[in-house]
């Protein structure tokens, strides 16, 4: 459990690492209705597209230097030498980022959903989808950033994009499912299934990638 405390200590002192992405999310969600002359109905239709893309962007921002700092200062080297399960440490690191960024963003997203759609039920149904999708986004961006650890995050993002597009399609379908009152829980189970695979596989792959970078 030391790793949990250590990561929280680092993030507590580096507030831009988690507060910055949350503020960017609030900025996007607040600015979007101000910059368009939509009727309320049109605004509601465009809202979910903006919401998913904002979550995606924020998770991309949040993971920009998730491993780079540790790589540059030699902490990753020490981790590789002294930690028996590097993938577990990486998994915990991603989990903490999600707890500090993903959960608040999901909560704020649901509040904006309530504000735009005026539907408490919609906000309630969107919240778990936001929670799961933000965790999936975070994992995938971490994977991309680990691949291009020393080459900059732009390349990592480009590599990750093809993996994110199917998820965005599913998220669009979830909104339709909620609106039509159809198989919402099937989609939720699908997303949970994807997440359960990703949270096991991605930290494992990242640990191999990091070892290769250090070599």
């Amino acid at each position, binding site marked *: 459990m030391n790793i949990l405390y250590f990561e929280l200590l680092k993030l507590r002192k580096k507030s831009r690492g988690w507060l910055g992405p949350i503020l960017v999310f609030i900025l996007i969600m607040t600015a979007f209705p101000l910059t368009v002359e939509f009727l309320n109905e049109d605004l509601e239709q465009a809202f979910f597209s903006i919401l998913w893309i904002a979550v995606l962007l924020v998770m991309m921002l949040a993971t920009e230097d998730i491993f780079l700092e540790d790589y*540059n200062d030699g902490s990753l080297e020490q981790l590789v030498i002294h930690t028996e399960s590097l993938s577990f440490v990486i998994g915990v690191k991603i989990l903490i980022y999600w707890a500090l960024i993903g959960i608040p963003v999901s909560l704020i997203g649901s509040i904006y959903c309530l504000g735009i759609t005026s539907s408490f039920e919609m906000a309630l149904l969107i919240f778990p989808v936001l929670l799961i999708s933000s965790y999936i986004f975070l994992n995938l961006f971490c994977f991309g950033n680990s691949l291009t650890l020393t080459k900059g995050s732009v390349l990592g993002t480009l590599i990750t994009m093809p993996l994110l597009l199917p998820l965005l399609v599913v998220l669009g379908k979830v909104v339709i499912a909620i609106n039509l009152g159809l198989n919402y829980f099937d989609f939720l189970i699908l997303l949970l299934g994807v997440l359960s695979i990703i949270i096991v596989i991605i930290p494992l792959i990242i640990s191999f990638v990091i*070892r290769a970078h250090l070599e």
Partner: protein
Amino acid sequence: MTMTYLIKAENLSYKINEKKLFQNISFEVNSNSAIHITGSNGSGKTTLLRIILGISKPTRGTVETNLTSGMCYLGHKNALKQYLTVEDNLILQSIQHNKALDTLLKDIDLYDKLDVVVSNLSFGQQKKIALLKVFLNESELLVLDEPCVGLDGKAQNFLTSFLQEELAKNKSIIFSSHINLNLDAKSINLDN
């Protein structure tokens, strides 16, 4: 058959893009022994240490380890978080704040720097903070890559005395250094 060595390296060779860094390096590290890796810049000292640590893989050869209480490594990078205070960095390195730490901090002139952010310290002071982990370690093998870089004369003497004491405690040391640390160490020159 009982293994007496802590580290056994056999025929280690390493090449980068067909350029050979070193070839057929063999040695054993036993309890209460020190190995000093020497060589000019770019001769592969750090690479050899990283192979011993298991971070890098040799082009040829093998490294066998027989450690029970692990190893303590300090490389070129100090693993310090620049935006945290010295005290926070010590917490990150699992160093408990106790009497032994206070004594050490006084010995290396850093006792009043605990609440200072690391980025406000000089390179030498940062190196001393990184060395605290080495001074307080309980591993049976120390692997140090240029431990004297940035240290003043007093700190170098302190480090040398510490390493001599560690050897006396039956511990083992592998280090690379351009500075002679006055240790009874077997030398491996990578230029040859």
